[in-house]
């Protein structure tokens, strides 16, 4: 177990370090340095001004020095300064991350509940028609773009019927509606994978044995099928973090909420490269961290993982 955990954590750190390196190299591939790009979006600037600011932020140093200085800063939580506001990038992101977390976590909880509801309804219903309808929900959820659903709901609820504000005003609906919009989108892949793996579990002989022993349909589902089908769903849940973050950016923009979405938009429009760098790194880290947690939880669901020592891919077998 200890070895497995150490291996996973090591891999996670390696991925973050590689992500940092790729971002650093990508910035070097820009035709010019971050300071010149930032200043030039406005109007003509003279070279002395650019040089001054470059010196200020360390962009005049040799590449290797910059690489290790920034890497060193990263270890101490210092990811440089936003060129647009002069504020430390960590502070700028830290100031809004709470709002995004609240949105993303609530949306995630909503997504899991929605996915489970779909799966329970589809599996336990006796009505073929209802089952057919429910089975078509996940593809529909996946197909509806976050931005479209958000715009339509706001148009109806806020502009037509006037029951909620276009702006976040702390009311129940102003959080619930964006959470629902994002949750619906994220629930789709979770529900789809869960449905597929439940089907697989039901086709296995031990279900017949349980039925023969007289177990009720809901007993089989909750005590046996769900647990055995949980692994792949958990993996896909880890992967949906990306969808969740990207969806948050869109949701926040549509609902005019403060959060990472607004910061991303600003960073990109004002060409604030250090801020963009920080955001990309943050996204990579969150992605890696969540998948690390999934990896660490996995042996609890399926002890075979430890026996095979992480070699091969037993997760796929379960699907």
């Amino acid at each position, binding site marked *: 177990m200890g070895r497995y955990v150490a291996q996973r954590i090591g891999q996670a750190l390696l991925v973050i370090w590689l992500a940092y390196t790729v971002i650093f190299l990508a910035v070097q591939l820009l035709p010019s340095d971050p300071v010149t*790009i930032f200043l030039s979006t406005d109007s*003509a600037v003279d070279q002395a001004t650019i040089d001054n600011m470059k010196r200020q932020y360390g962009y005049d140093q040799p590449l290797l020095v910059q690489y290790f200085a920034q890497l060193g800063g990263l270890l101490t939580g210092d990811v440089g300064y936003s060129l647009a*506001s002069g504020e430390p990038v960590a502070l700028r992101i830290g100031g809004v991350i709470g709002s995004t977390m609240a949105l993303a976590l609530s949306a995630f909880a909503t997504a899991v509940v929605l996915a489970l509801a779909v799966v329970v309804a589809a599996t336990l219903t006796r009505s073929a028609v209802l089952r057919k309808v429910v089975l078509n929900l996940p593809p529909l959820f996946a197909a509806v773009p976050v931005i479209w659903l958000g715009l339509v709901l706001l148009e109806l609820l806020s502009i037509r019927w006037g029951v909620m504000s276009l702006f976040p005003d702390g009311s129940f609906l102003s959080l619930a509606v964006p959470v629902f919009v994002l949750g619906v989108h994220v629930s789709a892949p979770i529900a789809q994978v869960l449905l597929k793996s439940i089907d697989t579990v039901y086709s296995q002989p031990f279900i017949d044995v349980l039925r023969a022993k007289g177990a009720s349909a809901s007993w089989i589902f909750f005590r046996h099928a769900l647990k055995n089908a949980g692994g792949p769903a958990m993996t896909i849940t880890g992967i949906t973090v990306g969808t969740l973050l990207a969806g948050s950016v869109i949701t926040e923009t549509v609902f005019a909420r403060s*959060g990472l979405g607004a910061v991303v938009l600003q960073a990109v*429009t*004002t060409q604030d490269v250090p801020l963009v760098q920080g955001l990309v790194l943050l996204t990579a880290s969150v992605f890696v961290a969540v998948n690390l947690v999934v990896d660490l939880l996995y042996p609890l669901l399926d002890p075979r993982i430890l026996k095979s020592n992480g070699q091969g891919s037993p997760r796929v077998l379960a699907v």
Partner: protein
Amino acid sequence: MATNDKKARARRGVRRTGAAALLTAAALLLTACGGNAGGGAQPAANSGEPVQGGTLVFAEVTPINNFQTQSARFYEKANVLNSVLDRLTYFDAVSGKLVPWIATKFSGNEDNTEFTFDIRPDVTFSDGTPLDAEAVKANLDVLGKGLEKAQIQPNVDFSAYESTEVVDEDTVKVQLKSADANFLRATSSVAAGLVSPKTLELDNAGQSDIAKISGSGPFVFESEKPDEELVLAKRADYAWAPETAENQGAAYLDKVVVKYLPEVAHRAGAVQSGQVDLVRGLQPADEAAVAAGGNQVLPAPGIDLTANVAAVRIGSGKLADQKVRQALQAGIDRQALKDTVLSDSYEIAGSVLNHKAPGFVDLSADLAYDPEKAKSLLDEAGWVAGADGVREKDGKKLEVTVTSSNNSVVIKPAFELIEQQWREIGVKLINRAADNTFLATALQDPEVEFFGTRQFAYGGLGPVFGPETNTQTLNADEELNELFAAERAAADEAKHEELVAEEQRALVVEKALALVLWDEVQVYGAHSGTNIEFTSGTAPIFQGAWKAEG
């Protein structure tokens, strides 16, 4: 057909509002001896006495978190700072002249190298510091030289600045390194707003923080929720508005709440449903609906800005011959652009400067759509039609690329139409407008032939098109720069205007380095009860604004 009818009816709605606006404007001009406060001078749709009190909710396009005065010039910043910071002078769009504001008197010497400002007594910043000659000097020094310890860059319009001498408590004398006939006009810019000397002592992050900036303007910072809301409260003791402002005292409104509406699709609905009193960045397609709903469509002309242009970069060599550039200029059907992509709120460009800008010269005769002339110019330049209809020369195809930011809601569809128009004269346009990712590399790439944009220009066009690093053409044209230098040094006003006209002719007609499209305008939507006017830089004037009761 039904939609066409609807559109036509809605259009008439806009025209009616426009006609009403014109009538009101005429009435104002006739009756008001002192003129009105309006830069853009969009007269209020409501008549009657201003109502005291109330809160105006203004939806801005995107949140901004850097309010440092002179760094970047974004509308979303200027629209707030215009009400927080005063300037030495004010540009009155009605008379087209600079009028006194914090400077009660201002004048330059004959060769435009020395300027004297008399500072209004009894003006204070909101932190209690007096706005005296010392404070003005501190501000001018930062505008002219930047502030290295706070990483503040000099203001581009103050490039000739040398020093300021405090003559007495309320007089300063400014020395320039070289003549600059545009210096006075630049002091009217929001980017030359005056802040308290205590604000200038803060570091970069401090001076960027709206909560820490003290100005002498009619509104002061009250509270904010980052990226969601900014609340400004009126300053009750404000008594130093620009000379031409109708309201000489404190603002009528108690508060202004700035909110953000990045989603363009909701801007019309926000006004229609009364959730906001004013919104910036209305799409042409939404204007009719707003007007038809009894609300106001208010175009604020960007008199302080160049027209929207496709600035030409000659790095790829394809546009090195000015005949080719002239052909492209003649190959744009601007009327079709207005009819198809824009609306009645937009005015077709007559030059690179705004129609109402001082020194504007009408070049519309040279800008007529003439595809035949365009074709023969291209023939003369040696570009002949290839098999696919695209012209070629020396094995190279006449394929050109345009880049722009996504700040304007109309720029991408505009270039889509130009792409069609140029296909007829055998030119292929690759439209990368509104693609910010592409812009990051294209902005500094002289081989990307066009940059679609508009820039603040206070007087002559030297600061915009002159320097070697200018983002418009990415190239210093020697003949142009001689012209810019002569214009800056022009001693009397008539001579100066003549040279500004010369610059426009060179940029638009002879060298055709700026393919001009439409005058810059910011289209606001306002709820029926909102009374608001705009500065020559398109910023709302909250000091003179009020809301009708009920």
